């Protein structure tokens, strides 16, 4: 696809489609390939039985739920004429298994409960899980430092049919508060409900080559637009197909909305 400023990216129509079967839902994503590298990871297609043996591609989050790696891939975007890479996409897709504790708080298929939960989750991230700091000034300072949305109203929703996907911004600050912090653009964490027990989260970061920023050919707003366009193209190529039972549950959970 061609973007503004003569930037071109991989042809999604010719890229590989990778799908995952979770039983309750099937997810397909389009993954362009770096022509010279196979680096990264793609989990097996069959995800109906989640592993219980320890492994390097799943872990228990400090907040108690299990997270499974599905895809960790990168690809690049370059100048059409010089073919010099100008932007790098990092696509990290994971599966989260809803823990008993989470289940008591929300059902991912309920749009409002899901948004409430992800916002609280981000607040807890900001205070590193110390619940006594929730609601304090410190929490607000940390959320700003992490470039997180500061209220539920600031959470952007990607329209994906009956369920919207909450898109939350995040970026860990450098520890020394130097000038490098000022240039950071946050990454997106995008949450995709699959069932009452499972949801996906996409950690999507796009970094811009210093060749684009140093040359002065790209303004700040053009860079933000490029990052936005790249992200939107990627999200448009993620498809979720729910089983009839889950579709029924989605209707039940959101009947008043």
């Amino acid at each position: 696809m061609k973007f503004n400023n003569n930037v071109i990216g991989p042809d999604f129509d010719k890229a590989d489609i990778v799908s995952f079967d979770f039983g309750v839902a099937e997810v397909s994503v389009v993954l362009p390939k770096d022509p010279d590298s196979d680096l990264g990871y793609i989990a097996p297609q069959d995800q109906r039985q989640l592993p219980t043996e320890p492994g390097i591609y799943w872990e228990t989050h400090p907040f108690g739920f299990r997270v499974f790696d599905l895809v960790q891939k990168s690809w690049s975007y370059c100048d059409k004429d010089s073919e010099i890479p100008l932007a790098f996409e990092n696509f990290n897709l994971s599966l989260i298994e809803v823990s008993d504790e989470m289940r008591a708080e929300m059902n991912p298929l309920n749009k409002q409960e899901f948004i409430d939960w992800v916002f609280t989750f981000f607040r807890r991230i900001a205070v590193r899980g110390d619940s006594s700091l929730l609601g304090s000034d410190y929490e607000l300072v940390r959320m700003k430092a992490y470039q997180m949305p500061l209220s539920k109203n600031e959470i952007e929703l990607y329209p994906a049919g009956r369920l919207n996907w909450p898109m939350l911004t995040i970026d860990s600050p450098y520890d020394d508060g130097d000038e490098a912090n000022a240039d950071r653009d946050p990454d997106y964490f995008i949450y995709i409900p699959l069932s009452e027990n499972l949801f996906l989260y996409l950690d999507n970061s796009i970094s811009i080559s210093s060749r684009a920023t140093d040359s002065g050919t790209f303004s700040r707003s053009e860079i933000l637009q490029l990052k936005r366009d790249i992200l939107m193209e990627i999200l448009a190529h993620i498809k979720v197909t729910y089983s009839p039972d889950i579709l029924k549950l989605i209707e039940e959970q959101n009947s008043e909305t």
Partner: protein
Amino acid sequence: MAIPSLNAKKLSHLPSPSKTLLTKQAMKDFVYFSDNTKGINGKAVKIKIGLFLRFAALVDPKTHTGQTIIRQIENLRMLNAASPGVHANVHSAFRFMLQLSNMQVFYAVLDGEGQAGKEIFIGDIKADFGGNGEKAGLYVYNAVTRKYDSYKQTNLDHKAVYLNGHCEQLQIALKNAKSRISLANADIAVFYTPGKVINELGVWNSSSSRKTVNESIGKLRDVMKFNQDKKVSWVAEAEGAEIFSNALDGMNGVLSGHKFRLIDPLTNTPMLLQKLKSKEIKPAIDEIAPVTYTGENRATTIFLESQKNAVINALKMLRAKNYAERPHQNMVKELEATADNKPVEKNKQALTNTAALNQRVPAKVVVTDNKAALSFITALKRV
């Protein structure tokens, strides 16, 4: 034993800016860049033979990136000063620079031999790895965000720290780390060296500008000092081994609880092994050779050619308790089996012979596709 110097004064063989002609003497150091740039279609493009080693290390003609670079240099025959990617030297007429993805190509447009008209003479190339502004330094996994946070100092006890070679961004270094070290995210840290720092490393540049690389090395040394009495495994790949080697220089005392593994080291490996021994850093104990040449890193393979015997001798001296002796011995045998295979040296000599032959035949004969006109890229494809 040292890695061959890659330094070359830019266009040092070219005449002063006021002149537009190469001397016969200087001309013999140049060959046609490729079979497509012999002046039949557009201007002829020639390149200095002395650049063969560095060019071969930077460009793999079998990859998409390598083929793109070759095509872009071939296109110089059609370009002018206003073409995209071409930068004119404002202080010097006829001098230009072409910016490519991983290098800068310095060239002049001068009168060619006989009736050939203007020709392109590539007098220097310089490694120029890009990056995205991410800072050099230590990155440690944050289990809450599942991202890597930057640290000046932190306790690395029982962690493996990966030191990356050239890669375009931190995320690639992290993926490389994960592919090299079979541990959970929480047990892997990365000391990241971005492209702009690697540009300044002695492996790629022997100029005096070492500001960012020295800063980087200082950061790594601070991390090592902070963790001196801990148990840390260092896994250094490609240029990461050069950073590691430099950081060890300023360390007082020993790091006897530390272990190392080198993957495709792009440094003076015998010297690094000597330093590791004196600091009591021992080979990693898992079932992988402590020094591994995978053949995947083109620059390492190219530069290894001239130091292979010294590397083999140094590896034979490597002994430690409980280390992976069998994989290590197999690695040594593998290197010994190819010790006399020197394709870079052989093909560079073939180019020199070609240039000498070209001096003795008229220009119009040289432009035809004959044996005497072995081009730089044809030689490169044989490496």
